[in-house]
């Protein structure tokens, strides 16, 4: 049995999905977190159910990928039961989609989520009355506190039924729908869609167009507009019957500050730069402690053992790999994710998007594209996936470039671990400034040459909420555990392989080969360039490899400040990592991947060579 979670964006579908299935899909406080279909399984009373978390949508008749995905599943009868998740605070707007879903006649359970927030916004919702009107069971939940979610599955299985509620459409529309259904063997919702000009059956569409034109001539508005207006009107009536307004508690509206040009934009700058500074400071402090611990309690005793050379090389490699992972990457990445999660959960991202709209128009995008870019500071892979929330291919193409250029947390590790630690914290920030300038220039250039239309932003603002400590830590932990289970073993294995290659002189051969290019063009030691190559696998591995090849984590003893700076900036710009290449390929196709990769390689080399020319 297949159960689908359907609802508007940002109403808590994914949070409920996680609680039902025990999985950990992304939950964030902005519309458009889930972009594809997620499935999970749950056993209830010895029976297995498949649960689908679907992307949030506003209606079923749009032409975005998300709307088509959900509509397609309903039309092909892929779901046996629908759990419609509605935001109790914005019930009227949410009912608009619900009425459309209800037309498919599937067994329904209505979940009014965000019950904890109705109080705050001064309303109360009568769920029993709503259930009576809709003709299907309604339960109230506050998923964020886990309240009521335990009831979802039992209620759905015991009492879900098709809704009896029906939108009363204009009688011309009703007549037209009847006539389409008389001529073609289709269900009511399909006939309605076809009257709106949507569908796959060309013959039916053609005959619908004729009827639609007639209605349009008479009403001076298209059937689609009439139908929408009827649904909204009906939603207003239903909401009016179940919502009681109480006195709203007056409080200070933070948006008075956050969405104004002044002080909103300075606040945004302070937040973003502040996060970087705090991550650098906390990260380097933790790093110092961990590295010291490794050096004095593990590396030194090992060296004093006097093992045979091969064994010593191997065990040192393992230790250095561990040290690079735990000591350098972990403190920065974990702290970073904590802050990104706070941003995601607070609802601030949508404010940033609103403020950035004008600037983003300059680079051929609109405000909402700031969300993938900020996510890009965490990890490029999900950021590239969220490019899907942009509507046109042109925007996605431009965003592919810009998002891959944003320094992800792995690259932050490099900037922090190499530049902030050895050269200085302000120099580290200057790398962000350079990348920022390059992103802007790239955007300006691409927006001039990329064909296609430019769309504007229509984005629902997420409500501001104080992020919950538990959720933030859980979310960051989920991401960091991916690092620990996938990246750490890789780091250790590659560091052992590196050690072996070094022992047998292979690295030396490659290093000698790359030597002229490295020292003449980039001005960095050849082994550092060799280390850069490892960044293709995972960005932080470049740093791991550098430490192994240099033979010491105290990089300032083997390279000058300019060399360290150059090395860091090249590895930040140069080549997206292999996972990014893979998702880019899946999302955008081969051509974009090749272009992005070539562009970033050239950019890295040019900037590196430029610095070498300027400070020989």
């Amino acid at each position: 049995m297949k159960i689908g979670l359907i609802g508007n964006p940002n109403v808590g579908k994914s949070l409920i999905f996680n609680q039902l299935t025990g999985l950990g899909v992304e939950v964030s406080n902005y519309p458009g977190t889930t972009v594809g279909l997620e499935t999970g399984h749950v056993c209830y009373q010895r029976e297995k159910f498949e649960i689908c978390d679907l992307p949030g949508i506003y209606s079923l008749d749009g032409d975005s990928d998300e709307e088509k995905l959900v509509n397609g599943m309903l039309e092909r009868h892929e779901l046996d039961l629908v759990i419609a998740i509605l935001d109790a605070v914005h019930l009227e707007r949410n009912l608009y989609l619900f009425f459309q879903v209800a037309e498919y006649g599937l067994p329904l359970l209505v979940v009014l989520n965000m019950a904890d927030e109705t109080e705050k916004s001064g309303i109360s919702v009568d769920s029993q009355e709503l259930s009576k009107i809709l003709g299907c069971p309604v339960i109230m939940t506050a998923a964020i506190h886990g309240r009521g979610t335990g009831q979802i599955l039992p209620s759905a299985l015991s009492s879900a039924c098709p809704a009896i509620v029906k939108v009363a459409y204009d009688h011309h529309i009703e007549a037209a729908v009847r006539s389409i259904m008389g001529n073609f063997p289709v269900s009511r919702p399909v006939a309605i869609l076809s009257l709106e000009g949507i569908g796959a059956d060309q013959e039916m569409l053609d005959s619908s167009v004729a009827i639609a034109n007639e209605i349009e001539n008479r009403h001076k508005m298209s059937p689609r507009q009439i139908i929408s207006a009827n649904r909204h009107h009906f939603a207003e009536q239903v909401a009016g019957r179940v919502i009681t307004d109480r006195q709203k508690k007056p409080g200070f509206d933070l948006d008075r500050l956050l969405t104004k040009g002044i002080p909103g934009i300075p606040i945004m700058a302070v937040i973003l730069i502040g996060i970087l500074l705090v991550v650098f400071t906390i990260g380097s402090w933790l790093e110092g402690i961990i590295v010291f611990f490794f050096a004095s309690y593990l590396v030194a005793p090992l060296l004093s053992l006097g093992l045979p050379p091969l064994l010593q090389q191997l065990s040192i490699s393992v230790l250095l790999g561990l040290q690079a992972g735990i000591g350098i990457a972990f403190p920065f990445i974990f702290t970073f994710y904590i802050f990104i999660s706070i941003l995601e959960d607070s609802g601030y991202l949508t404010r940033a998007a609103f403020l950035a709209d004008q600037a983003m128009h300059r680079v051929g995008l609109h405000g909402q594209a700031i969300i993938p870019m900020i996510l890009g500071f965490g990890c490029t892979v999900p950021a590239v996936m969220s490019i899907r929330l942009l509507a046109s291919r042109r925007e996605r193409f431009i965003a592919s470039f810009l998002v891959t250029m944003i320094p992800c947390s792995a690259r932050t590790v490099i900037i922090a671990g190499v530049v902030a630690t050895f050269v200085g914290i302000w120099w580290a920030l200057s790398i962000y400034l350079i990348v920022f300038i390059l992103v802007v220039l790239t955007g300006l250039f691409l927006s001039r040459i990329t064909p296609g239309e430019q769309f504007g932003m229509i984005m629902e603002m997420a409500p501001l909420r104080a992020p919950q400590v538990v959720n933030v830590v859980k979310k960051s932990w989920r991401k960091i555990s991916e690092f620990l289970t996938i990246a750490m073993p890789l780091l250790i294995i590659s560091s052992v392989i590196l050690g072996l290659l070094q022992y047998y002189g292979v690295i030396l051969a490659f290093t000698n080969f790359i030597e002229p290019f490295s020292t003449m063009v980039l001005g960095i030691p050849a082994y550092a360039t060799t280390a850069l190559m490892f960044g293709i696998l995972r960005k932080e591995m470049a740093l791991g490899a550098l430490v192994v090849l240099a033979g010491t984590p105290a990089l300032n003893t083997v390279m000058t400040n300019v060399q360290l700076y150059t090395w860091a900036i090249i590895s930040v710009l140069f080549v997206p990592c292999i996972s990014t290449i893979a998702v880019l390929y899946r999302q955008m196709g081969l051509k974009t991947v090749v272009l992005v990769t070539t562009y970033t390689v050239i950019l890295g080399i040019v900037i590196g060579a430029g610095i070498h020319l300027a400070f020989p």
Partner: protein
Amino acid sequence: MESSEREDYLEAVLVRSLAVQAHTSAKDLAADLSIGEETVSADLKSLEEQGDLVFDETGALSLTVQGRTIAERVLKKHRVLQCFLGEILGMEDHAASDEACVLEHSISDTAINRIGNYVKSAGHRRNWHRGNTSYNRLINNNIPNPVASGLVPGMNKIPPAGTSSTPLGSTLTDAMESVPLAVIGITGGEYLHRLIDLGVIPGEVVILKRRLHNNAVVLQVKECDIALSPEIAGTILVEKM
């Protein structure tokens, strides 16, 4: 002189007299049309000879009845075309205006009347809740100041005289913050559906919560806050309650 040039001159004089209500000299026109002053003087001389306009002793020029008739016909064509290109076909304001500047000279009266009628009925259709048409508003009021809206190329530098808000209805980009507004129509095609899904339909009462200097807005519709880019805000017609 070609007839299109003649029409451009007369139109520019008319637009100026409508907007600035000051004396217009050959020099002003030269600046408006970005043409050299000497050429303009010579051209105006020949227009005077044809009886389209007259100079007074201070050097200010005004249109004769003949000149004014021609100018008004061209200006009307310009407005209809700009409205058609911009509001129906969804072209950018400036592009629509520039295009209209070219087409206005060659299009026939029959064609312009038909386009006018089409725009009028399309205006009707958009205001599907109420009977009033946005056509008249678009043609007569929404271009209250031809200079400010860039009717004549090169005339944008002149500061607009008077205010550009209209008594009947205006778009979100010039509405006031925090007062209830009634939506009276949406003019842009591309964004129509998403806006409708979010509840921006004629008759709906909305509140403009925020407008930035670039005209990006936050609109409260059905208790939800929705952020819109300026080009989208500019397609939503509203009036004060």
